């Protein structure tokens, strides 16, 4: 009997130790991300400004993510209209489809899905590029050429991420609502003026700009997390692979978790 009890205590002890170690690792990583963020913000306000590099990153993150964002937004709007139309029909509330699509997209799906796509596309690319630069000593070379790598590499990506994500979200919002309209009116045969009236009647500007505030936060988070993962890569090609995966996973988790708390705070 006492043996079983000892085993049980041992198991609990091990579990607590493991939990504690994971917690320590998590806080250490969070601390280092915050340090990089502080350093990036400091370099952001000090001249010289990296305008050319920032523009290059805006094109890299923004323009090149646009096609995927468009496809995702239009199909999300379409399926949302389809599902809510058939669902709402059960209690004769089909007229509300326009409202549901507009509110879901602007408040939630626009920023979150755009964030997840940019995390997968641009976040992975940032981590892989910076990671490769780290393992091939290009970041050290920047230092020896009297160039602060945080200023040269991290700041442009951080600015680009923060301004590009809300911009992409605006486009995703519009395209998503149009997608919903297309399915409701053309495929399901609802009245188009009812759809638009229901969209505008219940949509408030705060729905849109609070969604965009979320998008700004997601953009900043993706950039700083991905840069962090790339910047501190070690261990050659395998390390670059791990950094890339880590960047996508951590960015996506951050988006999904922070989305809840941001929503609870912004949409009271």
């Amino acid at each position: 009997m006492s043996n079983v009890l000892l085993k049980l205590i041992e198991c609990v002890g091990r579990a607590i130790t493991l939990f504690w170690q994971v917690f320590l690792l998590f806080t250490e990583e969070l601390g280092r991300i915050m340090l990089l963020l502080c350093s990036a913000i400091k370099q952001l306000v000090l001249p010289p400004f990296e305008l050319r590099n920032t523009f290059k990153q805006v094109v890299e993150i923004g323009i090149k993510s646009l096609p995927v964002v468009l496809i995702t937004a239009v199909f999300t709007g379409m399926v949302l209209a389809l599902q809510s139309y058939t669902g709402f029909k059960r209690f004769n509330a089909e007229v509300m489809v326009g409202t549901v699509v507009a509110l879901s997209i602007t408040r939630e799906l626009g920023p979150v899905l755009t964030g997840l796509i940019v995390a997968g596309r641009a976040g992975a690319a940032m981590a892989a590029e910076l990671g490769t630069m780290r393992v091939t000593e290009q970041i050290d070379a920047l230092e020896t050429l009297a160039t602060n790598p945080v200023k040269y590499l991290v700041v442009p990506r951080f600015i680009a991420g923060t301004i590009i994500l809300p911009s992409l979200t605006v486009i995703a919002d519009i395209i998503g609502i149009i997608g919903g309209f297309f399915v409701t009116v053309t495929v399901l045969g609802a009245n188009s003026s009812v759809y638009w009236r229901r969209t505008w009647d219940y949509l408030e500007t705060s729905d849109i700009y609070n969604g965009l505030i979320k998008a700004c936060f997601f953009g900043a988070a993706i950039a700083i997390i991905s840069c962090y993962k790339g910047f501190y890569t070690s261990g050659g090609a395998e390390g670059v692979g791990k950094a890339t995966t880590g960047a996508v996973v951590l960015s996506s988790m951050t988006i999904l978790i922070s989305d809840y708390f941001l929503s609870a705070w912004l949409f009271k």
Partner: protein
Amino acid sequence: MIEIVDLHKAFGRNHVLRGANLKVEKGESMVVIGGSGSGKSVLIKHIIGTLKPDSGSILIDGVDIAKLSENELYETRKRFGMLFQMAALFDSMKVWENVAFALMRHGKLKEKDAKEIASEKLRMVGLMGVEDLMPSELSGGMKKRVGLARAIAHSPEILLYDEPTTGLDPIMADAINDLIIEMKQRLSVTSVAITHDMHSAYKIADRIAMLYEGSIIATGTPDEIKNTDNAIVRQFITGSAVGPIKIEGVTA
């Protein structure tokens, strides 16, 4: 002049540098030799300030660079040029943009003027017509030459070489040795090279220092090193597996 005084550095439990002392006179070519994992790279990274010492100091003309603020450190680095082991060229930029990087960033030169200077520096290292190529289109030896052109582009006073001949065929390695000697004569720079290639060390060094178990155990001219009585140095320069130096991970 570079002076390293009682330098200690540990990474976790791995105590890499254990009180290294080294003095490099102005205009001198110093070569630091030592086995793989002896801390040569760590030493050279301290000289340019990308690593901070746990204790000890690195004096450049009497100023301890470990105590400089971030801005002062970046200012000081403008006096340095460094050639990396794998050249570390920026692979997103053309060859000339690599060479002209510091000029365009710190010298505020116009693109046209910077490209002209880049071409001139590339000619100095024996390359012509490669300005508009990407680094991925170059061979290993050419990359090293471009790396060297980038290191000398802003006319530094101190040049650091991280294993300049590693990974090159013997003829290309010798060509790089000749270039290093030429750079020293033409630009009258102070240089520090780390290598385990003894042929290269004898050729480019005014003085050689041996790093072993975290400290400098011997310094001298190439002739003095060749004729040393120190058993550790003898084993290293003759390249013998038998002797006082234990090979890591191998039990006799």
